[in-house]
């Protein structure tokens, strides 16, 4: 299965199907309509939790996609991407303050451009250093830059506000459309608009000479030199532009939360970009969008319920690295040819058969992690493990036995079923190959 997916090139086919276009339109309609699905008509107000989650998803989409401009498209592993996101945020916080006191009179709707410009300028400075190198040396320089800026953000009170960060008020009373942005739904639609603009912009970039040469330098930087391109300059421009979009994402962050702290510049957020892009799939343009939405939703949901979010995300990530290096989007794309041949139905039963033990395995694992975590962190917080309204006694043996049993039985069963699944998959792809050879 991985072979089929790995063969999918970064570049979309020259005549992209209209199905893809419809998928994008559907995504946009969904983004516009979703808040109203959670609208509380009795109280005539929006769900604050949902709006803030969707807003977060929007900026993370920009962030993850701009990260993939480096990772997936140019083959550059960066550990400082949050620096540009955070810097865009800081600048916009200052810009908001400036807009309300009149020293920086630009309307709210254009604030993301200020953030983008800030990200671009910083990315030009740091890109000049980092993009002279490639591969591991590049990754190490970016790691250094990331640590440098995070430390600097803590140190310099004036611009970064130290540990407390800096705050501002987004009700600056400057809008192209007379909006006050007092309500989060207004901010949400601003985010939707700029996310759409950024996604289109970044997609456009993949279809330009620069975007194509970034792919080329990723595949074979030496050959790129012998067709007349300087890989360093390709890397540099690509890096600078990805900083521009990251800065725009950071600007939306600043507008939505009205506070930016050094966390938005620090290592964990850079790591998050990597996780989102990789889990979503770096080989397909839309992959990081999937990753960003998935991680944001899981993060908002799971971190409310559990202390162990980091363990889950770590295990998910390692599982993806080991078994599905092409990410979620890669899996989906691998089904394309099978769907075209009308053979998707054949996979239904095998899918159910691996999902059942997979579910048991995940349940067992989650139960075990939660039991362990409730012994220490939960106990320290004075929380009790409650399942469907029933308190669970973590001192008794039964829940532990159930968890470990689920883990082991699910694991063995899944191993067996995945062999069966692999056989069916290979059969179908072999059939497709034969059919292709006949034509």
């Amino acid at each position, binding site marked *: 299965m991985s072979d089929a997916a790995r063969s999918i090139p970064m570049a979309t086919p020259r005549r992209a199907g209209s199905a893809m276009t419809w998928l994008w339109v559907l995504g946009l309609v969904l983004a516009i309509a979703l808040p109203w699905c959670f609208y509380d008509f009795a109280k005539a107000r929006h769900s604050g939790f949902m709006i803030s989650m969707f807003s977060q998803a929007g900026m993370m989409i920009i962030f993850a996609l701009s990260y993939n401009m480096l990772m997936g498209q140019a083959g550059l592993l960066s550990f400082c991407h949050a620096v540009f996101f955070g810097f865009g945020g800081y600048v916009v916080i200052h810009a908001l303050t400036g807009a309300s006191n009149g020293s920086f009179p630009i309307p709210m709707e254009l604030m993301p451009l200020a953030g983008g410009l800030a990200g671009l300028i910083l990315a030009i400075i740091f890109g000049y250093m980092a993009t002279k190198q490639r591969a591991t040396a590049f990754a190490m320089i970016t790691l250094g830059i990331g640590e440098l800026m995070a430390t600097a953000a803590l140190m310099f009170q004036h611009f970064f506000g130290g540990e407390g960060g800096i705050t501002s008020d987004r009700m600056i009373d400057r809008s192209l459309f007379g909006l006050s942005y007092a309500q989060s739904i207004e901010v949400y639609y601003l985010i939707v608009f700029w996310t759409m603009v950024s996604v289109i912009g970044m997609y456009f970039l993949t279809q330009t000479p620069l975007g194509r040469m970034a792919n080329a330098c990723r595949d074979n930087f030496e*050959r790129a030199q012998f067709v007349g391109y300087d890989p360093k300059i390709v890397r540099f421009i690509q890096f600078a532009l990805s900083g521009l979009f990251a800065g725009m994402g950071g600007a939306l962050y600043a507008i939505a939360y009205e506070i930016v702290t050094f966390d938005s510049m620090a290592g964990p957020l850079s790591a998050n970009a990597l996780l989102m892009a990789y889990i979503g799939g770096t080989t397909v343009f839309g992959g990081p969008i999937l990753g960003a939405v998935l991680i944001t939703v899981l993060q908002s949901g799971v971190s409310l319920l559990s202390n162990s979010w980091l363990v889950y995300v770590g295990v998910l990530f390692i599982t993806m690295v080991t078994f599905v290096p092409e990410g979620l989007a890669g899996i989906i794309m691998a089904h394309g040819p099978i769907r075209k041949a009308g053979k998707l139905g054949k996979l239904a039963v095998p899918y159910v058969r691996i999902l059942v033990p997979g579910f048991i395995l995940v349940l067992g694992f989650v139960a075990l992690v939660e039991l362990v975590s409730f012994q220490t962190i939960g106990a320290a917080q004075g929380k009790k493990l409650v399942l469907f309204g029933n308190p669970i006694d973590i001192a008794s043996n039964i829940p532990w036995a159930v968890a470990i049993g689920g883990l082991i039985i699910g694991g063995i069963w899944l191993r067996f079923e995945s062999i069966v699944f692999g056989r069916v998959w290979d059969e179908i792809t072999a059939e497709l190959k034969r059919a292709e050879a006949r034509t």
Partner: protein
Amino acid sequence: MSGQAVSLCDVRKNFGATEIIRGVTLNIAQGERHAIIGPNGAGKTTLFNLISGRFPITSGEIALNDTRIDTMPPHQINRMGLSRSFQITSIFHKLTVFENLRCGLLWSMGYRYSFWSPLWRQKALNEKAEFLMEDLNLASRANTPAGLLSYAEQRALEIGMTIAGGASVILLDEPTAGMSNTETDYAMDLIRRVTQGKTLLMVEHDMKVVFDLADTVTVLVYGQVIASGPPVTVRASRAVQEAYLGALEE
């Protein structure tokens, strides 16, 4: 020396203490088809790497159309009209055949690092890439990632990318290595067709290809030129037969 397409003057190259290229002087006229032959380890590929700027030279001079190029980086040499292929296929393996050729065309058609012109709207560019694809007999594989092509197809693509930019001087490093007889015949035909009117410099082991394609042959042994001239003369040369051909034609 003026008027030469490529001229090398006492070029030397050391790797550490070992001297690999030991004073090569070579002039290649405009439109010449020049083959470099020699036993393994003679420094043929190294010579290519020096001319194309992949490695810096230790001493000497290399000029392309009377301009010194020995201190330029590879991309600049390429922009001046010298293009090369590699012995080990060097293509963009995740991009499609069409994309590969288009990448080969981009710089020569003046797109530079453009991030504002959408590729799908560049009619002249796309037509040229299509045309090239037909020429290479790869049109049926347009949307196949280059990494999945057969070996012979990859070699054809390699040649295609080398000539795509319209360079006036083409360096081919063992274009027919590892090919079957029919594949070799096809490749020779292809090379003859696509390098029409250009200066061709090639490293080749297959004597049939050399004597068929080249109008000048240079024999390189241990980093030194021991003979240079028309194929017939070189074949007849005593020194060459002893050093190289003798072992083959026995």
